[in-house]
């Protein structure tokens, strides 16, 4: 009797989610929780000395880094500029190459399915290769220097840019494009007059964003011989010349902050 009453009450106030979905979400939640607990346990087991040891080491390491050697600035300024140049060239080339790829990877413009899926798959593969691996491959092919670094950055930023911009293209208002098609415009005209004005601010903003990423990435790429400031940083650390290394790190920090500030201001003005 009470059971019947309960079921009646339930019918009157249905729960927000169906029971099946509730069940699924609960299961997923516990599976993820399990993964977290397991990985926490596992990483702790691998860490020799635990947190206490790391903290003790930290102070001795940090002490070695101070004070930074200010005299080294003129010598490292060249490689720093090289790093910025690498990022500029790579971003420029990537942003040009990305245009056809992004258009082909946008479902609403590329209605020919096989072409769309091919480009999408190609971009997905491109994005799965880490920038560091790309740099190692290109350094192996072309030797140590700026060129392999630039190539690695181009491929790396192409993957990100084309993906993000194709998604921007997919979100545009298709009505003006229909109007231009209806007035006899060809594919290029429809894209240029209907699509480009709608995508341009987003495009510029994303290019600036990828430029910021490239500045940081090009520092890391120097580590594997792809030129720029990273190469010098790696050398100095290798010689245990910590004050010099610290100065390099400070300089990178300042440059990254300045560039991010400028590009943030530019992006704010655009949107």
């Amino acid at each position, binding site marked *: 009797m009470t059971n019947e009453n309960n079921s009646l009450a339930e019918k009157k106030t249905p729960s927000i989610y169906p029971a099946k979905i509730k069940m699924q979400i609960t299961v997923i939640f516990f599976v993820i929780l399990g993964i977290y607990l397991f990985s926490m346990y596992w990483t702790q087991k691998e860490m020799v000395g635990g947190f206490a040891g790391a903290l003790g080491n930290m102070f001795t390491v940090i002490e070695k880094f101070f004070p930074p050697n200010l005299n080294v600035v003129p010598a490292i300024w060249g490689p720093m500029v090289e790093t910025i140049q690498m990022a500029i060239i790579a971003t420029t080339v990537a942003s040009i190459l990305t245009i056809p790829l992004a258009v082909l990877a946008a479902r609403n413009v590329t209605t020919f399915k096989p072409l769309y899926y091919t480009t999408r798959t190609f971009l997905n593969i491109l994005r799965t290769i880490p920038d560091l691996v790309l740099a190692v491959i290109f350094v192996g092919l072309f030797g140590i220097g700026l060129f392999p670094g630039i190539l690695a950055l181009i491929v790396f930023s192409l993957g990100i840019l084309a993906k993000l911009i194709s998604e921007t293209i997919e979100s545009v*208002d298709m*009505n*003006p494009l*229909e*109007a*231009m*098609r*209806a*007035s*006899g*415009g*060809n594919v*290029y*005209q*429809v894209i*240029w*007059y*209907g699509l480009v*004005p*709608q995508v*341009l*601010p987003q495009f510029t903003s994303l290019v600036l964003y990828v430029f910021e990423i490239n500045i940081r990435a090009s520092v890391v790429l120097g580590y594997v011989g792809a030129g720029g400031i990273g190469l010098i940083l790696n050398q100095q650390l290798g010689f245990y010349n910590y004050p010099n290394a610290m100065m390099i790190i400070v300089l990178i920090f300042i440059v990254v902050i300045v560039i991010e500030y400028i590009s943030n201001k530019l992006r704010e003005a655009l949107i």
Partner: protein
Amino acid sequence: MIEFNNVGLVYPNGTEGLKNINATIKDGEFVVIVGLSGAGKSTFIRSINRLVTPTSGSLLVDSEDIINYHSGDLRKLRTKIGMIFQNYNLVKRSNVLKNVLAGRLGHTGTLRSIFSLFKKEDIGLAYESLKRVNIDEKIYNRADELSGGQQQRVSIARVLTQKPKYILADEPVASLDPPTSHQVMTYLKKINKEDNITTIVNLHFIDMAMEYADRIIGMRAGEIVFDGPVSEVSEKTFEEIYGRSIREDDLRGGADES
């Protein structure tokens, strides 16, 4: 002249958009197509410039069957047919003049248009067209700064710049208030008379259809159920077209305010 001969259209999902349509639209006519939403008005109009492709029958525009047209022919066909949309379909971020010049794309080479090198006459024509719909003072405003009625006038100017032989208008006033609706229809009618451009308009407001049309085509479930001059149309005709009695919201009203 536009001739529909036994035209049928089945969408890929199996819906029948048009069923055995037969109609002839003579040059210079102002035809209003009425019917409930889903009756096939849009499909009818969009078949003429091949935004949709009929699956059977023949559709002659200037005595040429357009159903099998491909890219080159299709663009040439579309250059002589202007289209006006319910949502104006302007590029919101571009300025008014650039939107109007887009009407000239079919007449302009790809390279020229990409570098915005429109011919002097074309720019003059665009400005003239804006003047004709009384919106020439907004020439450098961004399209999204204009009101709905102003945007629709810009889209009329875009069509005028195209110098079309036919104008298709797909629910041009459905997003506008009564006074602006009448204003837009008045411009369309005026252009139809002055330039002798054949105009086909989709409407679902009975009173507006009666006021502006020379001829009314009534559609229901993909078929033409009425076709005749406005003088032969009465309330009863509309009840037959709609398959129900006429209601308040079938009328736009506001004719006196405009």
